[in-house]
């Protein structure tokens, strides 16, 4: 059993006990524990079930690489699945539930899959569920969905907050082990601004556990002293619990800071995503120990040798009373020593190597009285939910059992793989190191930045330097190189000297025993979480999935939440063996950020709830809101669709507003329309190029409706242009067009006609603009008093500056409804007051505000087009019968050449017409009209479509506009529009002007 020792635990504060629960069981740990160490201290080795076979799973590792110990943490708004127990710091009240089992962790029905594993090999799902096809949707998929997946998806809204932080530095050092500390120190000595980050809560990495000396003092003291020195340097920033999650182009790094995961009671955001730009990056991210592939290596109690050591030294926790160490290298001997020093039993060190002479580690083991057997391996592990013993065999053989040894834990080590993820994220290449049997960064093929120079340097174990003496020197060098690359002058400073120990070379072991038969290979796990075994990878190779990327996807090796941190190298080696290729020939799969999963909340940052996206508000927004506005998004703006009164439906409100604007007086908040000032000696010439019609001939004081097209000839915007004076125009754009058209103007001025003397300013938000519409419009303005707004003083399509009701205003006599209408601009700061004044004077004139839907109906009744309804990026003005707005005199305007192309002048282009159903019903918006015959696909030929369709309360029938083949030549014809409800609508082609066809209402 696993237990807490009476002594030891360098990271623990034993003065402070913490209560927590696992699957409802109340347990105790100490401050400083991880959830993993606290569970092991309570003899909770079994922590979950595997993905496919639901095999019992125990803690394997002690850090970010953990594949098994995944739990649901918290509840309600604090619930989060798939949290690694090894990186979860214990806090008072922590509540965890294990995942992927039913009905319970101890007894899981799904475990039947392990007995069926012979029938569930790699690619099982692909092979099994492809036939018969109908079964997939209704039978297979629901069942697989039910049994698939690890944690539960959260249901409640996330109760925490998150944020981003932008940070800039010269050198960023990722990893706070001895290599990172020394790199930070040597870089900082040059005066460079250095950010040093460490993903855990502790400095020093593995060194304090592994031991050794630096300049004669214990490495732990060196770590403390270096941290203290760095803390006093003003140009150094140190951050713990901040992981370098990803390295991207041009020195961009995402840093994931966990602020409150260990202290949920503190106020503030939970995670902070650092968006860092560093001139140079040092990846001192250490190395990860590899498991050994032997039968039963997934039984709870089989752990990485380094993890077993960590639990003893850091947390005073014994994984077992009797621990067998199995290894192919000297490093794992340290685990045996640590256990021995803690008074625990190590019955045997099983070493796969056959060496000519003993290394110092072996000698020390023997001196401690530990039995060491060389050239041997494990044939299998006994036990199901917990290790009960191991069977020993010759590594060279096929697995004949030579001896059985009782034990309750196995510490395994297959060698060390540098953490090259961050090096590789942005294109750093790797080389295969034969001596250490791992991939390490290829220093000649580093990621390159904006200047074409390398911007990442790997240091320490992450660079393949596994021994303390090498690690320090490597870190020192990396720091200097980084500072120099960032433009700082490096002074030659002495590097502390780490203790160098003599080690015997490791010998790669990709299968134990090397001749293991299929029986053993199908129990030798590579990927614990996704249940991929040696036999699966071999099968994939046999079935032709020879590319490493294919084999990965076929077997799911490395596709679990741990992304193969433990399994990938063993998997590659297995694949290489099966293909009879070298490991570097097979290569690695792609390393993609983030290094370990980061919260979705941290990615979103502040962008949620009220600030999920920037809502734009007009000066009268609050009034609309208080007066029943049913909001419609228009770009980022919110505009009232209508103003609902008590007891009234949205449709009722729209009908009421639409009628009232024709009968009495309507007010529309038109502030969102774009307003661009175009000024300069060449302004007229410029607008002649931008609009299809002639603007340079417009007289000051007059307005003209204009169309804008792209160079491709298609309509992009429309609006009324007012000439303010000889060289100043004010151009109105659509609501969505203000920024876009402003940008469009600037683009042409800056990049094509840069010698033209024109300046543009976007003054959209300077003004509140209110449309005063209806037969009583003039009366309302006359009641306000001030400037003359009579027909003679201010005719249709004229504008004037003046005062109304004491407000300084600019009045445009323009109409998008066909009614007598004034659009009045006032400074935005007085928009609400002016609106209030209009409501007061309008009280006796039947004033009602109206929303965007009434606006649409009013314009459709008049056959006015709307950008985005009648246009969709493929429509030219000629399609809409707007020839009158296309100048024939101008030699050039944007879109003119395009409109001369044969396809644009084709008489078969669909053209705008009005449509009226024979029944008076409303045509479905977007419906297509069908004609005679069928196309090549056997579908009915289309001859048109509906672009706008409304019920008109003023005409008491459905009205629509549409684009129809030869439409204008087919007035009176009836065409058919199949609906989506099985019904077919018959509609007559009519003139698009439905209401007041002579335009008498506006001409008063």
């Amino acid at each position, binding site marked *: 059993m696993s237990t807490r020792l009476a002594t030891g635990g360098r990271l623990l504060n034993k003065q402070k006990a913490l209560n927590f629960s696992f699957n409802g069981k109340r347990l105790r740990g100490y401050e400083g524990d991880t959830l993993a160490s606290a569970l092991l201290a309570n003899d909770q080795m079994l922590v979950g079930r595997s993905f496919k076979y639901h095999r019992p799973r125990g803690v394997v590792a002690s850090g970010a690489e953990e594949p098994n110990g995944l739990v649901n943490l918290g509840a309600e708004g604090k619930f989060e699945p798939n949290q690694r127990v090894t990186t979860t710091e214990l806090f008072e009240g922590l509540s965890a539930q294990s995942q992927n089992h039913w009905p319970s962790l101890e007894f899981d029905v799904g475990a039947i899959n392990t007995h069926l594993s012979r029938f569930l090999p790699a690619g099982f799902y692909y092979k099994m569920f492809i036939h018969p096809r109908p079964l997939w949707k209704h039978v297979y998929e629901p069942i697989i969905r039910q049994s698939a997946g690890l944690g539960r998806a959260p249901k409640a809204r996330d109760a925490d907050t998150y944020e981003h932080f932008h940070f800039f530095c010269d050198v960023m050092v990722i990893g706070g082990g001895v290599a990172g500390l020394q790199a930070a120190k040597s870089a900082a000595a040059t005066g460079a601004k250095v950010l040093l980050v460490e993903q855990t809560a502790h400095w020093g990495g593995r060194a304090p556990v592994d031991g050794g000396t630096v300049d004669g003092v214990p490495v732990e003291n060196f770590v403390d002293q270096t941290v203290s020195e760095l803390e006093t340097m003003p140009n150094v920033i140190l951050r713990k619990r901040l992981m370098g999650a990803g390295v991207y*182009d041009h020195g961009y790094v995402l840093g994931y800071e966990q602020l409150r995961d260990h202290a949920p009671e503190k106020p503030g955001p939970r995670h902070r995503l650092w968006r860092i730009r560093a001139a140079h990056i040092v990846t001192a991210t250490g190395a990860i120990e590899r498991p050994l592939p032997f039968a039963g290596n997934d039984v709870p109690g089989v752990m990485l040798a380094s993890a077993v050591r960590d639990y003893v030294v850091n947390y005073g926790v014994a994984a077992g009373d009797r621990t067998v160490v199995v290894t192919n290298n000297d490093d794992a001997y340290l685990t045996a020593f640590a256990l021995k020093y803690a008074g625990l039993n190590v019955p045997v060190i099983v070493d796969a190597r056959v060496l000519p002479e003993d290394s110092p580690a072996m000698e020390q083991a023997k001196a401690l009285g530990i039995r060491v057997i060389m050239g041997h391996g494990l044939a299998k592990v006994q036990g199901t939910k917990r290790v009960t013993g191991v069977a020993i065999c010759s590594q060279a053989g096929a697995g004949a059992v030579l001896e059985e040894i009782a034990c309750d834990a196995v510490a395994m080590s297959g060698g060390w793989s540098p953490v090259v993820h961050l090096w590789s994220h942005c294109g750093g290449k790797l080389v295969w190191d034969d001596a250490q049997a791992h991939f390490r960064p290829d220093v000649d093929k580093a990621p390159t930045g904006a200047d074409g120079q390398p911007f990442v340097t790997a240091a320490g174990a992450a660079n393949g330097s596994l021994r303390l003496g090498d690690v320090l020197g490597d870190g020192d060098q990396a720091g200097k190189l980084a500072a120099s690359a960032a433009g700082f002058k490096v002074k030659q400073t002495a590097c502390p000297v780490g203790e160098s120990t003599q080690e015997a070379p490791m010998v790669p072991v990709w299968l134990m025993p090397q001749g293991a038969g299929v029986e053993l290979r199908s129990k030798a796990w590579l990927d614990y979480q996704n249940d991929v075994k040696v036999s699966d990878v071999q099968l994939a190779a046999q079935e032709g999935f020879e590319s490493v990327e294919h084999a990965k996807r076929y077997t799911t090796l490395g596709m679990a939440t741990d992304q193969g941190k433990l399994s990938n190298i063993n998997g590659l080696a297995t694949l290489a063996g099966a293909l009879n290729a070298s490991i570097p020939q097979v290569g690695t799969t792609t390393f993609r950020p983030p290094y370990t999963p980061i919260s979705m909340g941290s990615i979103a940052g502040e962008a949620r709830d009220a600030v999920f996206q920037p809502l734009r508000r007009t000066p009268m927004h609050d009034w609309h809101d208080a007066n029943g506005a049913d909001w419609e998004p228009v770009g980022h703006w919110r505009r009232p669709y209508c103003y609902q009164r008590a007891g009234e439906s949205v449709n009722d409100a729209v009908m009421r507003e639409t009628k009232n604007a024709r009968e009495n007086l309507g007010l529309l908040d038109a502030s969102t329309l774009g307003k661009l000032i175009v000024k300069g000696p060449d302004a007229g010439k410029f607008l002649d190029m931008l609009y299809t019609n002639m603007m340079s001939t417009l007289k000051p004081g007059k307005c003209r409706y204009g169309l804008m097209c792209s160079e491709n000839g298609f309509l992009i915007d429309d609006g009324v242009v007012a000439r303010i004076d000889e060289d100043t125009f004010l151009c109105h754009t659509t609501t969505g067009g203000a920024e876009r058209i402003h940008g469009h103007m600037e683009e042409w001025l800056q990049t094509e006609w840069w010698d033209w003397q024109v300046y543009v300013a976007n003054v959209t938000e300077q003004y509140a603009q209110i449309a005063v519409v209806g037969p009583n419009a003039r009366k309302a303005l006359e009641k306000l008093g001030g400037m003359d707004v009579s027909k003679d003083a201010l005719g249709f399509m004229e504008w004037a500056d003046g005062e109304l009701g004491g407000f300084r205003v600019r009045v445009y006599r323009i109409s998008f409804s066909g009614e007598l209408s004034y659009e009045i601009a006032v400074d935005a700061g007085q928009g609400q007051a002016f609106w209030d004044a209009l409501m007061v004077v309008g009280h006796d004139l039947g004033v009602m505000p109206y929303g965007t839907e009434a606006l649409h109906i009013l314009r459709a009744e008049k056959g006015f087009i709307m950008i985005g309804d009648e246009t969709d990026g493929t429509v030219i003005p000629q399609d809409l019968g707007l020839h009158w707005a296309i100048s024939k005199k101008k030699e050039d305007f944007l879109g003119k050449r395009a409109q001369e192309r044969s396809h644009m002048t084709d008489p078969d282009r669909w053209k705008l017409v009005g449509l009226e159903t024979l029944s008076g019903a409303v045509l479905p918006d977007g419906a297509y009209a069908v004609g005679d015959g069928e196309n090549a696909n056997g579908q009915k030929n289309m001859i048109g479509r509906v672009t706008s369709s409304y019920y008109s309360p003023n005409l008491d029938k459905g009205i629509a506009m549409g684009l129809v083949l030869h439409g204008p030549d087919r007035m009176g014809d009836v065409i058919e529009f199949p609906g989506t409800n099985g019904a077919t609508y018959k509609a007559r082609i009519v003139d698009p002007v439905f209401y007041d066809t002579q335009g008498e209402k506006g001409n008063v």
Partner: protein
Amino acid sequence: MLTLTCPVCGVTAEETEFHGGGEAHLKRFGPGASDDDFEDYLFMRENPRGVHFERWRHAYGCGKWFHAARCTTTLQVFGTYAAQTYEPPKEICDKITGERPGWSWRLFK
């Protein structure tokens, strides 16, 4: 995510401050142009693996357009320069030649 230096206002900023505007140094063809010239102008674009010339706008900054010479494979930026020109400046071409001997892009070498 790139960093670019706006040659107009001198600010070095990350890509989110900018707006990409496609290929640089296009020559406009208007009314009177042949179908082929107009097609080239409107639709035909370089898609090089390597040296490329692009238009960018400092949309969240000074609002000005500029040009950038960039490598599409390594993302190295050889330089940025004013948009009011018909060809890349000599010093940028020389720099590219130093880094990518034998390069060519449309008519430029």
